[in-house]
């Protein structure tokens, strides 16, 4: 029998062929139909393909699927809970932090990973965490605003 891998994506276990070796990005998009994770460069430079591995932001175009077998993979599709948006998704809508929206999933996943480990990031911390994410439409000011807004929403709901 051909060797397989188990990927746990957004809480669901998927068994996929182990061969040939391929990136997590192509597995998510072309095999599991999770197309919210985008291709933008394939060289770790744009962040459109960002997912979380055990809660930490990672470039899925630079990640071999085999390397993350069994780990907890979260994509943009997995940020909602029971139909309720993640506070950062809400904040992106409120701040109007998108134009074409193609970078948006990667931005939100990167931002959500940051907020998970730092609930009140400074401007410099946000910029550092998102420096690898490109928005060619230039919505950076709004993305910064959305992350700050989400941080304050999360603080309020925690209080």
């Amino acid at each position: 029998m051909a060797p397989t891998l188990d990927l746990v994506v957004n809480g669901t276990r998927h068994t996929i062929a182990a061969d040939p070796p391929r990136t997590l990005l192509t597995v998510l998009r072309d095999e599991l139909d999770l197309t919210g994770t985008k291709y933008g460069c394939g060289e770790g430079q744009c962040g459109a393909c960002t997912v979380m591995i055990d809660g930490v932001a990672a470039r899925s175009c630079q990640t071999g699927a085999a390397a993350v077998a069994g780990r907890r993979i979260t994509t943009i599709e997995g940020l909602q809970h029971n139909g309720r948006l993640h506070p950062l998704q809400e904040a992106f809508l409120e701040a109007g932090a998108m134009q074409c929206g193609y970078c948006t999933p990667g931005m939100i996943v990167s931002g959500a990973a940051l907020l998970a480990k730092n609930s009140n990031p400074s401007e410099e911390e946000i910029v550092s965490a998102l420096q690898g994410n490109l928005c060619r439409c230039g919505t950076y000011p709004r993305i910064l605003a959305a992350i700050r807004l989400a941080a304050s929403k999360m603080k309020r709901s925690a209080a």
Partner: protein
Amino acid sequence: MSYEPERYELMAAPAYDFSFGRRGFFKTLGGGIVVVSFLAKSQAQESGGGRARFGRSLPQQIAAWLHIDAQGAVTVYTGKVEVGQNARTSLTQAAAEELGAPAGAIELVMGDTARTPFDMGTFGSMTTPQMVPQIRRAAAAAREILGPGAWETLDFANADKKLASGVTTSGHPKPTSEWKVLGTSVSKVHGREIVTGSHRYTSDIKLPGMLYGRVLRPERFDAKLVAAETSAAQAMPGVTVVRDGDFTGVAAPTPHQAQLALAAIQARWTAPETQWSSKTLFSELKRTAEAGRERGAGSIEKGLAEAERKHQATYTIAYIAHAPLEPRAAVAEWNGDRLTVWTGTQRPFGVQSELAQAFHLPESNIRVMVPDTGAAYGGKHTGEAAIEAARLAKAAGKPVKIVWTREEEFTWAYFRPAGVIEVRSGVSNGRIVAWEFHNYNAGASGLNTMYDIPNKREEFHPTQYPLRQGSYRGLAATANHFARESHMDELAALSQSEPLEFRLRNLKDERFRAVLQAAADRFGWGKRKAGAGVGYGIAGGFEKGSYVATCAEVHCESGQAPRIVRVVEAFECGAILNPDMLKNQVEGAVVQGLGGALFEAVEFENGRILDARFSKYRVPRFRDLPKIEVVLLNRRDLAPAGAGETPIMTLAPAAANAIYSATGERIRSMPLSRRAADGSTVSGAAAV
């Protein structure tokens, strides 16, 4: 409104002209079979030629533009596409306003050649001045036919019958003073799908049985394929290989297999040696220039002869890439001799025409649909990926998807044209008396000065050029404003005038004066003293019906590239349709403009792009972000103009002027931090 197409728009012929259809058959190398075309000869002869169809008139039937079903669900049809500029939202607002319907009841069908009226394309900032009024007229006519209370009583029985014979010309759109939906910050249609990752772009489409395509690219521009050994690729299971004219490509059941098949092709190329490189570019442009078409007033000779002080300077503008985050993508599916294509393009009907020419089919056999696209910025006027996917799909007998790699997008798309601009001028008593302006290859749009000058000559000179070049957000106007507004500052210095005052003294146009003043006021212009590496610059301009002015604060530390730390941009485009989205557009233009102003430049040599990756071609990132303040002037007495392009024009000259104020150094090349990389040094000024 008059509109002069920019020189580079629309003119490109399709990337391929396939042999089949024309010869009545085509060959596939995959499986070694010869497939006889389904195409009837008479049909094949109907197609061909560059049917640009500029003059096509818009349909007058309401039914061509909107449909209302018995439940009151409204479908609006437009050939415009959504590439991030928020046309989907502003057109939804336009329909909602005039119908009196909730925005949520309206669904737009955009850019579908089978369902939407013909449209030249989404470019030139035309959606707002042309399509918004068109949709408003259609919706107003529909409201008048249905009666005022349709959405209150929810009585839509027979709405489609009532509208069937209606015409758009009978509609009376509301005056601006009565707007309730237009003019407000309605939030983005499909925003929720975008933030949840469910919004489907072309590159996300997957059809049953679909294959993944890859195209064999020449090793350099203009290279010709001498020989290709494809047998290893053909022997791979499930792989289709196509070689047809200049096209060689593969299709396979997975992206990985397509990659392997492509790599298995051994190709030999010949390419002419070329002298052109980014190092010699500007002197080559000058060397190959043609005479310009003269435009002007007064006598430039007389003006210069009489001027107290004279000045001349040369400015250069590098090639830059659009680099939309979603590269070119297409999915193609054949059904007999009928072709359906989904692709991210700004010109669905143009791509339909390109496909018709490439495949020698009538346009009526081809349907092009444009899903909302991961941006374009003028860079997606053409249909390369669509043609490639369709060619492979034809051979494979299955749908094929092509998504260009980032490197392909950086290499085989087209670029914003580079250019050289020469200016000669004269001033007397703080007034400009002579202005001569020659633009080589950068494009004619925005060539003419808005300043009040008695003697002037302004010419655009076509040249030969080394790279495939085309439209870009505000392409020529950005180049022309860079030269003009830099030179204005130089003249201000020459006549010992304060830069803003100097501009206002030479300017009558009230709307232009208003944006300059508004930007200066918000910026606190003139309140702080420049020096010690900190400088302030201002620049303004007009293009495509709208006015912009930018103030920039720049920090220059020795040995480091200049940094733009604060930008105030004032913008006026008539009556505002959606304030928050307009602000978003202006901010985005400033951010995107940072790249072209400071560091973006396509480097090339001997037919190869040297920086075809994001790791080599630097685009603006979070850390480059200045503090940006946008001042919107709302002129509700004026018809709305587009806003996608003009706001990008004046950052570069404002920054160049700020660098001068900080350091006394005048940089005359875009990008500013690359200065005089050109060995031929056309930059540099000398007073005459």
